[in-house]
């Protein structure tokens, strides 16, 4: 029998067990606010999982806790079977590089003082003195090509890029360390409609071609179903329901999931409610 405290070896790339995150309440002697309560999730290599929920549900907190940018009050986060809590800072950094993050607002996630070349090459230079050499430049060009951008963009700064271009640069940066998984936090909600489908397709294509796992956080249920095979519904920090996307859509088990599904808007005019009375 394995020891009680030893984590059970698992094949999941990213796993959370009983993840609980508290934040101190500002008031005097008030109990801490619970941001996440006992969250369990697994994403294996090449698997896709969508985390859906409303604002305040704890989706962004979950992302930060998974990357150990926030310390959990209880529970474990494991990357490739290694418990992040017991790793040294150097080992932690090495494990973190296996999972990269694509943020919601591309222009905020790119340093305004750097050029595209420096931005995309940044993860390749973890030390203070690492120079930007020709080998790195080639790798940057390779990743930019994979997101549909060419050498023209190398010397531009992000203030000269459109929203869609900036998000592609952010994706290129996320891919350059050859991670095994991408966590996307509302990757297209800040973009124009016409660009959303393109960027989502790009992400889906890249994940397929490089066998990347994907965890997508979103409040857009359409996008969640389109991109991810499995879905997890979060409400006020707790997991309400989890399962295959198609199943969840067809037969939601919890009332909250039903509420979320009912609130989805469709561009199909036939789906419009008939009367103007208060429903």
């Amino acid at each position: 029998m394995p020891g009680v405290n030893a984590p059970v070896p698992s094949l999941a790339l990213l796993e959370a067990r009983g993840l609980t995150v508290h934040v101190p309440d500002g008031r005097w002697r008030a109990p801490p606010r619970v941001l996440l309560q006992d969250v369990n999730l697994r994403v294996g290599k090449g698997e896709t999982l969508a985390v859906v929920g409303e604002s305040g549900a704890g989706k962004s907190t979950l992302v930060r806790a998974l990357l150990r940018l926030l310390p959990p009050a209880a529970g474990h986060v494991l990357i490739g079977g290694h418990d992040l809590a017991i790793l040294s800072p150097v080992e932690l950094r090495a494990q973190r590089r296996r999972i990269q993050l694509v943020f919601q607002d591309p222009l905020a996630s790119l340093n305004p003082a750097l050029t595209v070349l420096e931005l995309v090459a940044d993860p390749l230079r973890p030390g203070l003195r690492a120079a930007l050499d020709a080998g790195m430049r080639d790798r940057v060009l390779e990743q930019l090509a994979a997101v549909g951008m060419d050498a023209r963009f190398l010397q531009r700064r992000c203030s000269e890029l459109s929203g869609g271009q900036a998000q592609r640069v952010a994706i290129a940066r996320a891919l350059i360390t050859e991670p095994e998984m991408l966590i996307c936090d509302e990757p297209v909600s800040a973009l124009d409609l016409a660009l959303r489908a393109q960027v989502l397709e790009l992400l889906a294509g890249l994940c397929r071609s490089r066998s990347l796992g994907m965890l997508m956080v979103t409040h857009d249920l359409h996008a969640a179903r389109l991109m991810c095979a499995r879905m997890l519904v979060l409400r006020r920090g707790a997991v309400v329901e989890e399962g295959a996307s198609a199943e969840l859509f067809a037969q939601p088990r919890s009332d909250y999931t039903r509420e979320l599904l009912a609130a989805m808007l469709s561009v199909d005019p036939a789906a419009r409610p008939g009367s103007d009375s208060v429903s």
Partner: protein
Amino acid sequence: MKALPRASLLLLAGLTLAAIVVPWLSPWDYYTPDWDHVDQGPGLHGHLLGTDDLGRDLLVRLMWSCRISLLVAAAASAISLAIGVAWGLVAGYRGGRIDTVMMRIVDVLYSVPFTPFVIVLTVLFGRDLVLLFLAIGAVSWLDIARIVRAQTLGLREREFVIAAQVAGLGSPAIMWRHVLPNLLGVTLVCLTLTVPAVISTEAFLSYLGLGAQSPLTSLGVMLADGAAQMRARPLLLVLPAMVLITLVYACNSLGDALRERYG
């Protein structure tokens, strides 16, 4: 965006140029007395602005004073900027106990009264110009450290810094490549506030006799000499006063404009 005030720019550039060029071109230096023309008013007898009571050429002394003031201002500002930015950056970025310790040190140093401190230094090490700008630099970095730390606290939460952390960059690399370049704006603002303050402080210390040692002169020293002979030779006081006021005004006004543009 308004253009930088031309008058101030010209004044500052003019004074700096004069400070460099005039002593070089003039046959007189700032300490050799001209026994033929002691205590003369301005005129065309070889001393454009006249001489002081020891026969030293006033124009050259004035320009030398400018040199010293500007030198001290530049050196002290550079030192305080370097220390202040580094201190504030590390304290703000690391946070936690390191931040607390570093900022408490700043608080303690802040409470040390400046003038007595310089007096003690002078007593210990004698009057020395280098000592002067080390002392001034050592005190002015405190404000900069606080401002930079506040700015760093905000920058630390920005998404691109988090992206760098997730990408596996070490803290030194993040601070150098990501946080520091975005601090340049606030650093420039600090600089525009420090330089005029340092010029005034140096004049004040030299006036008290704590700064440049005779025969080396500075605006403060000339002010002290001029104040002593105010009734007999008012020009000895008025000239350095005008130069000091012009310098500080020009720096302040340029600082205002730069703050508007980049602040």
